[in-house]
């Protein structure tokens, strides 16, 4: 009887220990400082540190107090990102290798995710206390993340290597919350062979919507499965066509959405009216991943509105193609996207993380990796370094990438970004499919977005 009781006690205690261990681990990984006083918290926090690879001497407080030179920051940095996904992983690796060679004390571990899943994962990781030391943010999401306190303000950033408009875009209330990482714009890609075959003059920078629509009509050959045009029916296109038509997304004080103006309705019509006539519909597969890329690559799409990050994917297509600045209507406007990189507010290794990000965004190794591979453009101020980009053979009219920047519009951003984008996407796609009238759905979306501005 005594034996059984001892066994029982041992079993119960080990069970309890397991339970406590699990609890301590959980709290330690959530907030590193609060559990450090308890012995259980100490062991688990040190184990979680070694598992994430950071060593204690690399914490920012201690590194600044150490007698080593200022640049002897060491430690391991985790970095989560999306923009290398789908073809540029090796280019990012080149930048990482160059950084690690220059900073032997720092090791960078990259985690790449597809854009579609990226922000769900990032938000969950931040909430769970497992966010990477540094991560990538697109311009659209920067506002909500910096406003929610997820980003650590960066100290002593030298703004001189960066294009001023870009670095200022990631400054909130005088604090630099992120560094510009890259920028890109959207241009009109076209299949030259299809234009020649149809006897249509290829697009030029002076084209308007009317020219594009007329050409699209001539180029579409449904019997052969050839579509004249493709422009995604989404928020990311809408704010731009709105600007091309002289409309305003918000009022000047940004207290109300104004995109359902007559200019806005006309802009929406330009997007949705082509669907099904010269542009494939959702039922044809539009909107599914890589649909448009595959359509263009198979030579069955004459004109395609997409970003310059697609250059590399089109390197080996068996037909002639080129680009041109997108047609406008009353105004010329091109979508510009900017990505940024930030240090997590909970990073234990902020100094090393910032050092990596500065290298990632301003080093010559980065510039050459980006230019050589036709990736998104480096955010640097020194235009002479960009010369190599124009020397690449395809597409011939690379100058259009920079011409488009003359009339660049940035995506409108608010704190409740995703809800706004969903509201506009639904209004547009519903009307495109003929289930609602854009004259009804766009004003409803406008009302909804205005209500989101309240927070």
């Amino acid at each position, binding site marked *: 009887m005594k034996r059984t009781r001892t066994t029982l006690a041992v079993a119960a205690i080990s069970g309890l220990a397991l339970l406590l261990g699990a609890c301590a681990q959980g709290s330690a990984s959530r907030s590193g400082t609060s559990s450090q006083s308890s012995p259980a918290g100490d062991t688990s926090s040190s184990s979680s540190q070694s598992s994430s690879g950071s060593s204690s001497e690399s914490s920012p407080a201690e590194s600044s107090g150490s007698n080593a030179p200022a640049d002897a920051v060491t430690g391991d940095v985790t970095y989560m990102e999306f923009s290398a996904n789908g073809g540029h992983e090796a280019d990012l690796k080149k930048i990482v290798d160059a950084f690690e060679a220059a900073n032997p004390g720092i090791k960078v571990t990259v985690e790449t995710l597809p854009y579609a899943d990226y922000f769900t994962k990032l938000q969950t990781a931040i*909430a769970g206390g497992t966010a990477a030391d540094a991560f990538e943010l697109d311009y659209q999401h920067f506002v909500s993340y910096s406003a929610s306190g997820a980003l650590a303000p960066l100290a002593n950033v030298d703004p001189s290597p960066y294009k001023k408009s870009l670095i200022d875009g990631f400054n909130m209330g005088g604090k630099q919350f992120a560094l510009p990482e890259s920028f890109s714009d959207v241009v009109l890609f076209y299949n030259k062979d299809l234009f020649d075959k149809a006897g249509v003059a290829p697009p030029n920078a002076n084209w308007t919507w009317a020219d594009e629509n007329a050409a699209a009509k001539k180029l579409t050959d449904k019997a052969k499965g050839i579509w004249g045009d493709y422009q995604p029916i989404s928020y990311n296109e809408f704010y731009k066509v709105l600007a091309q038509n002289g409309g305003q997304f918000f009022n000047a004080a940004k207290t109300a959405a104004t995109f359902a103006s007559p200019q806005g309705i006309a802009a929406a019509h330009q997007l949705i009216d082509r669907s099904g006539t010269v542009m494939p519909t959702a*039922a044809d597969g539009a909107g599914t991943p890589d649909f448009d890329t595959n359509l263009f690559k198979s030579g069955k799409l004459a004109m395609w509105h997409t970003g310059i990050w697609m250059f590399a994917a089109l390197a080996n297509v068996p037909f002639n193609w080129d680009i041109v600045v997108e047609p406008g209507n009353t105004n010329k406007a091109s979508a510009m996207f900017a990505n940024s990189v930030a240090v997590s507010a909970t990073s234990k290794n902020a100094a090393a993380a910032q050092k990596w990000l500065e290298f990632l965004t301003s080093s010559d190794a980065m510039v050459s990796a980006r230019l050589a591979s036709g990736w998104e453009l480096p955010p640097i101020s020194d235009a002479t370094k960009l010369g190599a980009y124009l020397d690449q053979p395809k597409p011939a009219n690379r100058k259009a990438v920079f011409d488009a920047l003359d009339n660049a519009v940035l995506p409108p951003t608010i704190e409740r970004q995703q809800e706004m984008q969903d509201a506009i996407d639904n209004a547009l796609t519903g009307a495109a499919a003929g289930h609602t009238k854009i004259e009804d759905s766009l004003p409803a979306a406008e009302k909804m977005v205005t209500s989101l501005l309240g927070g």
Partner: protein
Amino acid sequence: MTPTPASFAAARSADANDVIAVSGQGDSAQRDRHSGPEDTDRRSRGARRMRPGRRGSGWRNAGWVLVFLLPSAVPLLLFTVIPMLASIWVSLTKWNLISAPTFVAFANYRRLLTDPATLDYFLHTGAYIVGYLPLVYIGGLSLAYVLDKKLVARSFFRAAVFLPVITSWVVVALVWQWLLNPAHGVVNTVLGALGLGQPGWWTDPDWAMPSIILASAWKDLGFVMVIMLAGLQSIPGDVQEAATVDGATGWQRFRRVTWPMLSPSTFFVVVISLINGLQVFDQVFVMTGGGPQGATQVVVGQIYNLTFRYGRAGDAAALSWILFVVILAITAGQLAGQRRWVTHA
């Protein structure tokens, strides 16, 4: 050798966080010792027999009972009970998962209950159930009836029908999305060859929910079939014989004898299917993502969106509790109604 419904209740409750299934888990051990679902009312008697006082050693064994309970009690507490209770607190706050939550009392509930969109999510969920339940019940019952007969390779057919039940939802949803592809799908190719209309399926707001219902019914048919088959096999042969002797036709035997005696199985299927139907998510998420234009957005889908896409965890928790109350009310109503139409052998 067919699994009993009780063991399914236990297996299903492992991944569902609904109250009914959780409470069902406790008595599933007792139910397993009986033969089938018709024992629902014997449960209380069984519990009385189980009372440990008989051997007078209740407290001496309490320690051991605790040790044996730990492996399931600890995860249950950590990952089900505590998060469930914590979600009450979350539902009273405004929380974007990143900054600290702020207490807003019942503002989330008030906003959700006055938002017409909330009703839409429940109506979409209801439309799913209305389409899904008859399809899966009649289909499952018919299959059970056929597979109860002496057939060649009967076990093979039973296993084949059951296979989708144990297949991952993501795989099933992707396969159905491909089958129902409006442009190149097998279904539309066949319909086109027959000269019939080719709907837009999951790309068309009117057809998206039927697409999901079709896939769901196909996947769950085997589950209902197994339950109904167990029910059929527990109907004593002499009752059928007596009916035959009394001159009942085949249809009359089914309508007056078999079907009423299947009512406990029917009850079980309806309760479980309703709860699962109210919690429908996986297939919607994979097949349509709630679209097109929100036409298939169901309650749990919106809970996901609120949390992981919109950063509104407080609203999501509140909507979870609203759903909980709805499920509780419906299930309580069913349990109350059970007395009137469920026949116990």
